[in-house]
Structure formats: C-alpha cells, structure tokens
C-alpha cells in the first residue's frame, strides 16, 4: 500500500486509515458529520495526494487530447481547467479527469485507482508527436474547501485569489513553497486545490501553515468519508460507483462535457448513436422518504423485475435525509418520478430529484 507525504500527520491526528485506490488514506478524523459541516460552513482540508497526474507535451498534444477525451480541449488556454472523460472504444468511460492547460504542456489529473489503467490506455493511443509522462509521485495535492477557504489561503500567498475564477489556476507560492493554486474541488463549495512537491518537508510546512491560517475559521482535516457525502450532495460522479468502463457519458448525464462538434474522438459514433436514438438508461438523483440508505449495488425494481441499480447512496448531512444516485430506464428518469429501491429485501419508494441535491458556494 502506498502512503502520501501526509501519512504521519494523519496518524498523529488519530485518523482512521483505510485502503483506497492502492493508498493508505484517512477515512475520518473525528467524524463524518463534523467534517462535512466544516466544509459546508467554514473550511476543511483534504489530503488527495493519491490522485494521479500525467503530463502531455509535444506538437501533437492538443490533437491527441482531443481524440482521447470527450470535451473540447481547444477551448482551454493557459491557466484554465476542464472536467472531462476518457472514452474507451465502446463509448464506456476509462476514467473521468481534469485537464489543465499549462502553456507549453497539459496536465491530466486522474483517479488514484485508475493510474495504471489510464496510463496504459493513453500510452496505447499515443501518437509519435506527443509525449506522456506519469508525474504522480512528484506531487502532493491538498484540497482546501469551504466558504472560508479563500480567506484562509490569502494570508499565505501573494496571488490575489479573488482573481482566480472557478476552473482556473495560477502558479505562485503557498507558505513559501511553489504551488499550482487551482480553483477546483469535489465538494461544491468555494475551494482551492494546491499542487505542491511531494516531499514530506514541504507537505508538513504547507499543512501546518494552512491550519494555522484557518484556526480562526475552525479549520478541520477532512477524510474520504465526508469527501463522499459532500460530492454526493452535489451529484458529482465517483468513478467505479456511478461511472465505469460500461457506462457512457450520455447515460451518466455528462452530455455537458461531451462535444461531438469538436471533431473526431474515440467512440464518437456511440455518442452520435445515443444522441439520435436516446440512451438505454440514465443516471438520476433519488431522494428517499425513510432514513435507510440506498447503497451502491442495491436494485431498483418495478414489481419483481430489476430495472435499474443504485450507484451511490448516503445520508445527506445537509438535508438530513437519505439521497442516492442510480441508473433507471429513460421513462422513469423525469424529476418527480417514483421508483422502488430494494433495500435489504424491502421495496422502498424513491423520488427522482434534480441534481445537485444541495447548492454550494463553488462559483462565488
């Protein structure tokens, strides 16, 4: 199991550690509810150094990325970030990712569990005029998220953080260490992700400085448990749960990042076919009247027949109710439709709800 540069810090804080994507990561420090609330109302810090980073360079970099991702990379300019997905040759999703335009090169940020798979896939598609490098081991990544994140970080950098719009980044220093300061996150709140060098020394100095700066806002370390409740309230995808090698971007409701007008890309024909003929299933948000949680893999049924499946579910700390996402037939996908989820043998009604479940401060 791999460890991040913050492993000793997590242990000293008494975090409960689990395996995730091949890394030993904190799932919670003091409790999911408290950590969730810190991010929604104040500021929280996540070690997300397990995420993978690849660098793409060369004259063919743009046309290569246009072919291997579904979004239109030509819309990016230096300092911009784009959410995208890599399709496989059947239109399924190899991974969802962020694409950073860094002037003379691109950086791709991928899911930890998929680093090896993504790299092998990207390598197999690589043209002679582009280079691909896995730089994951050279970077640590801290996500500082919450309505008080900007105030907290502004005391540690000369970069005017109000000048960084959502899905943009700047290079600068944080607490004296070089950083890519990215206005991105997985929580729906105002927040930044800090890419710094992966030494334990840098990690500790940045961590300590961020926590000292955030003390007056009640800053908290936040584990993967609250990361999941926060992202699910926003309807954000978790690879391996909501999307995978068999789901297409249109089925997952990711039509907004799927841009066939940009030109050719892998499995574009599948996108065009689903646009023309409709999708066989659609990912929807679900709210449940009871407090039972509809968990990943629970069937969605119509009478005795299984018609869909829950992909993610949790108890929403903000709404104080059970929420989920899952695939249903298109006829059941309009908001307000009522479906049945089989929770441990008991059919429980669930109502299709608009996503996100909760409105955050991300774009403020």
């Amino acid at each position, binding site marked *: 199991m791999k460890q991040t540069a913050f492993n000793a810090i997590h242990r000293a804080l008494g975090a409960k550690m689990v395996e995730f994507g091949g890394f030993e990561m904190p*799932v919670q420090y003091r*409790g*999911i509810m408290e950590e969730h609330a810190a991010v929604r109302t104040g500021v929280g810090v996540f070690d997300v150094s397990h995420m993978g980073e690849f660098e793409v360079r060369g004259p063919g970099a743009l046309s290569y990325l246009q072919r291997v991702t579904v979004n239109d990379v030509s819309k990016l300019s230096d300092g911009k970030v784009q959410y995208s997905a890599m399709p496989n040759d059947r239109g399924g999703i190899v991974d969802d990712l962020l694409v950073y335009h860094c002037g003379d090169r691109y950086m791709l940020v991928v899911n930890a569990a998929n680093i090896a798979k993504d790299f092998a896939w990207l390598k197999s598609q690589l043209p002679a005029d582009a280079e691909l490098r896995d730089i994951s081991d050279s970077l640590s990544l801290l996500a500082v998220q919450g309505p008080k994140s900007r105030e907290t970080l502004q005391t540690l950098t000369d970069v005017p953080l109000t000048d960084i719009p959502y899905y943009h980044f700047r290079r600068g220093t944080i607490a004296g260490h070089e950083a890519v300061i990215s206005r991105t996150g997985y929580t729906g709140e105002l927040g930044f992700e800090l890419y710094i060098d992966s030494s334990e020394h840098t990690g500790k100095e940045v961590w300590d400085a961020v926590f000292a700066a955030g003390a007056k806002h009640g800053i908290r370390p936040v584990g993967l448990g609250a990361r999941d409740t926060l992202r699910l309230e926003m309807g954000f995808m978790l690879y391996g749960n909501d999307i995978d090698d068999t789901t297409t971007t249109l089925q997952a409701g990711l039509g907004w990042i799927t841009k066939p007008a940009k030109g050719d890309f892998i499995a574009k024909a599948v996108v065009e076919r689903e646009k023309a003929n409709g999708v066989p299933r659609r990912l929807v948000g679900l709210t449940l009247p009871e407090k039972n*949680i509809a*968990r990943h893999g629970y069937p969605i049924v119509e009478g005795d027949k299984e018609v869909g499946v829950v992909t993610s579910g949790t108890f929403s700390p903000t709404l104080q109710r059970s929420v989920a996402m899952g695939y249903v037939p298109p006829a059941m996908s309009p908001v307000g439709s009522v479906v049945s989820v089989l929770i441990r043998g008991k059919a429980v009604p669930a109502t299709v709800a608009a996503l996100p479940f909760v409105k955050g401060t991300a774009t403020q």
Partner: protein
Amino acid sequence: MQFPDNLKYTKDHEWVKIDGATGTIGITEYAQGELGDVVFVELPKPGTVVGQGKTFGTIEAVKAVSDLYAPLSGEVIEVNPALAANPETVNKDPYGAGWMVKVRMTQASEAGALLDSAAYRALIGK
C-alpha cells in the same frame, strides 16, 4: 475505550445489562466507533419476541449498515424513543442514553453464553 464490568457482551458487539428479568440492550463503544456516525436505528415494536443470536433491528451509519443481534431471548417491553430523532446518541453515549431496547427475558440460563468485559476485550483485542 470503556467496557463496563456490570454488562455482558456478545461477539456481535452488543451489550446487555441484566436487572432481574429485564435486559437492557445496546451496542458497545467499539461497535459505534467502527460504524462511525449513526444516522438511523431501526428497532422492533414493543411486544415483539426476539431470540438469542437472532436479528432484532438494523443500524445505519454513513459508511455501513449492520444487523443488530439480540443477546438474550425475550419480549421487547420498551424501545428508546430518543433514537428516532437523535440516532447519534448511540455514538455519544453507547452505554447510557444510547440504549436501544429493553427485553423481558424468557430464558435466564442464556446469560451463561454471554461474554464478560475481559472476554469481550480479548475478542476485539483492546
């Protein structure tokens, strides 16, 4: 972590406090810690008959759901009314305000099959 000596324990991490013919049942501090934030406790209605080692309810935490197993056979005579609105009480006070049900025991001899504090500690390695 506390495992009071006046309670008996199961290998499934429930505790029971025996007062005459009444057994008060909850889950251990270790169990609540492993589950994490409890969001819902589904309990039987008073009058329900439960059997030793059989499920009598479920407990939903954010990360996991778990069955609850009755330490003793008997009839449910009281259900903790506070847990419906405040399930997190199970995390905060597992041996006190976080109790779940009271059972009128029907098989006094069953208590012999339960673990004492030391045996339970040994089981979980604490």
